[in-house]
């Protein structure tokens, strides 16, 4: 508990990160070291809470206390990329001497006042900005871009460098500043206590698991005809499960066309929302409350009957589009051909949203194929990233950014399969077939095997693979 009359700013720290992220287009390589800064604050247990994006790919983290010129070396102890939160520990724990940890408060009310503390760009000293809680909604957390949790919008300025800093109300932390929306003025967002508490509870067992996913997509049920078709009363309750992700624990319990009436203690309304501490929020919030491995009791309407089911909730880790973002990229080099799994970061690095055929194919593979054509879905699609020039591959006609269909007749589902397809071949020529109009090319196998070590040496690549 913060001592009465204490100054919260004493517990707010400036974080300087020297980071180096991989180059997904040359996956054995790293980009130049980059310096960035953010904010954080001391919490109980001699730890500093900040945003995950402040610490991503950190090579060194330095922390400075309020009005203290000394930099202290810090290390990352937990990273929650999905919720954009992270915890730091200090090598020299004297850093925490005379610092009072900040305590978490409750979800602030809309229209109430908050103050953000942090070290935003434009100066070296701490900055305070006061604002009003404008609204509370589920927002996309842009750090990894594919998860949405509760976020609080405020008109207090949240600028680069504020990230990770506390948002204070009545001497308690009611949020961690984390993102804005480009082009919108006087609009900043902070991560509220329910998400922070989930993160802190998650790491209590010494490991961060993440937020579990139900794998369901809800569709509103506001059309009276649709409600009659499902045999539902014409009221404001229930949202339809429009689709299910292929998560076995979910598909064993729920069915497409089920109508979700209640999640835990929350009644689900016909617009797919629940009433959460006085706020109408998307029902996904109710699923975010449980930890990995726990279960949720649901009430559903199925084929004219109401029934109760228990849904096991687990973290999903098998989808390339969902969150392989913060592992070093896997790769394999054979005869100068560079292969890597397709994921969001690779796509972003090569401008995969471009409207050309290759760019469209990569985007389709990553974001649509699993839903549309699950029978052709690959757990880890592999891309020919590029070619390291050598006489063995000089005539290879496809130069890169191409999705692999087959190698030596074997359908490629993951990097391991690709390596096996090359290394188990006894044929004179390796045949590499691409998804694009089934085009293909050939490589002399024994020449490629011999050339690989020479290519690695020429281009100063430490290994032909990272798995």
């Amino acid at each position, binding site marked *: 508990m913060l001592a009465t009359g204490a100054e919260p700013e004493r517990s707010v720290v400036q974080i300087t990160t020297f980071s180096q992220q991989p180059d997904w287009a040359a996956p054995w390589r790293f980009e130049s070291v980059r310096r960035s800064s953010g904010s954080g604050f001391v919490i109980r247990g001699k730890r500093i809470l900040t945003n995950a994006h402040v610490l991503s790919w950190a090579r060194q983290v330095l922390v400075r206390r309020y009005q203290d010129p000394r930099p202290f070396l810090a290390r990352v102890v937990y990273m929650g990329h999905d919720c954009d939160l992270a915890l730091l520990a200090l090598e020299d724990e004297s850093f925490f001497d005379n610092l009072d940890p900040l305590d978490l408060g409750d979800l602030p009310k809309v229209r109430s006042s908050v103050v953000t503390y942090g070290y935003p760009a434009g100066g070296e000293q701490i900055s305070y900005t006061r604002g009003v809680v404008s609204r509370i909604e589920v927002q996309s957390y842009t750090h990894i871009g594919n998860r949405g949790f509760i976020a609080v919008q405020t008109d207090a300025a949240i600028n680069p460098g504020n990230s990770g800093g506390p948002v204070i109300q009545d001497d308690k932390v009611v949020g961690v500043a984390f993102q804005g929306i480009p082009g919108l003025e006087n609009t900043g967002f902070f991560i509220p206590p329910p998400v922070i508490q989930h993160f802190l509870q998650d790491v209590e067992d010494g490991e961060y698991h993440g937020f579990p996913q139900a794998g369901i997509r809800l569709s509103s049920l506001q059309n009276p005809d649709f409600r009659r078709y499902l045999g539902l009363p014409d009221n404001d309750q229930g949202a339809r499960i429009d689709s299910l992700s292929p998560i076995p624990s979910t598909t064993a319990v729920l069915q497409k066309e089920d109508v979700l009436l209640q999640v835990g203690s929350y009644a689900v309304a016909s617009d797919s929302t629940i009433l959460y501490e006085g706020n109408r929020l998307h029902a996904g919030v109710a699923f975010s409350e449980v930890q990995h491995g726990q279960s949720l009791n649901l009430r559903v309407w199925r084929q004219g009957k109401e029934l109760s089911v228990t849904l096991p909730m687990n973290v999903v880790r098998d989808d390339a589009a969902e969150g392989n973002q913060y592992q070093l990229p896997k790769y394999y080099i054979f005869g100068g051909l560079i292969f890597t799994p397709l994921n969001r970061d690779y796509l972003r690095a090569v401008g995969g949203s471009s409207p050309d055929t290759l760019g469209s194919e990569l985007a389709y593979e990553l974001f649509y194929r699993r*839903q549309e054509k699950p029978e052709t879905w690959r757990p880890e699609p592999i891309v020919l990233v590029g070619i390291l020039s050598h006489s063995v591959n000089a005539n290879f006609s496809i130069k890169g950014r191409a999705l692999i269909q087959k190698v030596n007749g074997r359908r490629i589902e993951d990097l391991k399969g690709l390596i096996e397809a090359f290394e188990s071949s006894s044929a004179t020529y390796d045949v590499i077939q691409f998804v694009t109009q089934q085009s293909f090319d050939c490589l002399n196998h024994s020449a490629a095997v011999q050339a690989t070590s020479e290519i690695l040496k020429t281009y100063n690549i430490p290994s032909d693979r990272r798995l």
Partner: protein
Amino acid sequence: MRYPFLLFICWLAGLLSISAAQRSSSWENSVVSLEASRRSYDYLQPWARRQETVTKSGVVIGPRQILTTADYLHDITLVRVQKNGRGPWYSAKLAWIDYHANLALVTSADSNLWSHLKPASWLPKPMSRGQVELVRWRNGRLESFQGDIQQWAVKKGKLTWVDYLQMEVSSEINAAGWAEAVVVDNKLVGITSSHADNRCTVLPAPFVRPILQAQNQNRFPGLGYFDFVWQKIENPDILAYLKLTGAPRGVVVVDGGLKLGHASPIQPMDLIVKIDGLDIDNEGDYQDPDYGKLSIENIASGRLWANRSVPIQVWRSGELKEVAYTIPKVDYADELVPLAHYDQEPEYLIAGGLVFQPLTEPYLRSWGSDWRRKAPFRLVYYTLEKPSVEKPSRVLLSTVLPDRTTIGYQDHRFLVIERVNNRPISRLNDLAEALKSPVGGFQVIEFAPGESVGKLVLNASRLEDATARVLQHFGIQKDRHLSSP
């Protein structure tokens, strides 16, 4: 000292200009202006019509025959012709049009038009290099611009996906590509079809004349194309893998049988080494006696046309085989997302405020010239997919016109339909039929897997009233326009 020099330049410029006009004067009686008025459509509101008028050029090439491009002559309501760059406009009509070839013939029953007009003569011999003139009427004057033949290329036509022989000419002419006559020594070399960056694409005589001659005898079957995908062989390892003996040659087929219902003897991994007796190299070219190396696509679209049987020699499984390949006729309906559907009103069907349309390229072009980037990704991606027997085309819920019946659905749009009332849907006619068979009193509309919503339901008994209400509310005359089944 400065003035005499400037005067000399002015005199020289005037001399050059007059010289050009004198050289072109013989074209005054062969080049005409055309004015075409046509219906155009807003595919986002397919029931709405607009009118558009364009002016372009034409060349008299025979008795009561004016040659022009097919571009912008679809859905026409009125065609007029003006001679001598001024004076009256004469009523005319389309005598023949082929959109894929981008050629049209215009005629007129008005004898006054034809008096003093003289058919142009075609250049009898192929001309692969050299200078040409581009001639057109503009503001009452016959304009003539010099041009240089840059290259001959077999490339995609402006109104089709088929590659055919075209000529590229560099010229300072502005705003061209509207069927300006391309001439040399008082002979017609071709007509322009497009213009960008000081470069005109020209439909040349060797492409145009045989088509017109065949058409005059009513025996032009339409352009053909090879309905297989081939790739060049830049890598000798591919030839070694295919165990080809003899000199390196041929291109390899990677996908075949693209036209539904067309029995093709060509198989993936066939190495095509000869077509119609012509040797094919690793670039996919054959040696043309007049123009040098040309792509094999020109064999199906220029040397031969649709429906012709052509011998193709392939290297298959280690030996040479000859197969008889019938060249299919190009048809916009061959594609999952048709590139165009000229001379037809856009199809649509409104059911209780839900607006259904076929997925076509004209619809996608509603997002502007950069539609591949701006239109919804998934819709654009269908243009890269192949049609199948089960799904030769796609239908989408394009928008929802708000009504009390569609409460809760108002934000749904751009959703591709999979089934309606348990019936598979690939054409709008399928949907119209399916709506006649509601399930348990409901119209059940299911969308393709992966769409943002899976299903919508409407009360079948109230649909007719709802549709009538929507039509009245939004001022729409008809609830549908369907093509003939």
